[in-house]
């Protein structure tokens, strides 16, 4: 499974264009994001609020479709791509 972080998040993963995540045990987008912050702990307090929900300031897409954290990924995350975008409007 691939995860792409845009914009203000990119610097926290050393500007890697894509992150590869092993899909074992990952059933939902939320599972994938929690696995991501295990590899990149600095992202934990940035992506998640204190109740461990994705902050309102971020949008998640799975294979180009906007989803929420409960969205199911493919078995093993094979071929899936999760994008995390900032949700604000304007420039």
């Amino acid at each position, binding site marked *: 499974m691939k995860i792409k972080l845009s914009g203000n998040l990119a610097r926290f993963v050393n500007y890697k264009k894509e992150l590869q995540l092993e899909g074992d045990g990952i059933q939902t987008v939320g599972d994938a994001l929690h696995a991501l912050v295990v590899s990149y702990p600095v992202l934990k307090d940035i992506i998640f*609020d204190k109740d461990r929900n994705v902050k309102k300031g971020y949008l998640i897409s799975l294979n*180009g479709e906007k989803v929420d954290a409960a969205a199911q990924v493919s078995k093993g995350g094979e071929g899936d791509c999760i994008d995390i*975008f900032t*949700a*604000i409007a304007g*420039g």
Partner: protein
Amino acid sequence: MQARTIKVSHPVESMLFGPFQFHAHSLMLLSFSSMWSWGSTYLSVSFPGMIKEYHQGMVAVGAEVEYVEPFEMFSADEFSVSVDEFKVRQGNSVFQVLHLIRAQGIVVARVKVRWKLLELDGDEALSATPGVIRPAFLQKFLPEEVDPSRVERPLLAQLENLKEHGQLCAEFEHDFTLFRHRCEVADQWAFFELPTLASESRESLIDSLQEDPGELASSLGLALNNIYMEWRCPFYLLEKGRVKTQAYRLQDKLYFAHHVFNLTRANTLAAIVIEAF
């Protein structure tokens, strides 16, 4: 009470100008700087202070640049950029700031910018959600500087008028990547770069023409009268974009309408610009 205004003087120098007038991005950058001179003077709030003390940010959502009088590099030795009006609008969710550019006692250009307020989460990434001004920050404004009514969006009427009555002369697509020299501190596009993306696409269109029955190349020899801008979504470092430019003639005047799409973000419409010659 007298309106709280501020005026900042600058020397005239060549980098601020094209052949016929101020670059729009020069005026927008200097206007933004004057906005924070105003903030420091009247609110005792700097830009970093707004973020650190009030956990508040902002993004541009609309702007107009109006060239009021002919003014080029040899017209004067100095000019000033003012904040003539600073209002908290639209249910305390938008800053609207009017800047006047003056030289030799006359107004040569106007810049009006609307900034959507953001509430920051306080994390290192400056994660934010659209919001309203926090009460402690709002207290620093005078009652007459707070106007709850909705802001105007003049671009929409201009665009509708062009589509309905204008004669479409040419279309063009200009692809770009957002590099850091066009970004602000959070690696998001700097608001004053939007007119440069629009003019780049217009000049690329003109450069691509084999024939020019609409005499679009003539725009290179003209001063702009107005630029209307709206921002719709963020654009970040290394994201890919496409400017779709349409040239129109309407009542013997040239107009260029530019729609900027963020290709990285599923082709989302990121901004619209209209240049009126």
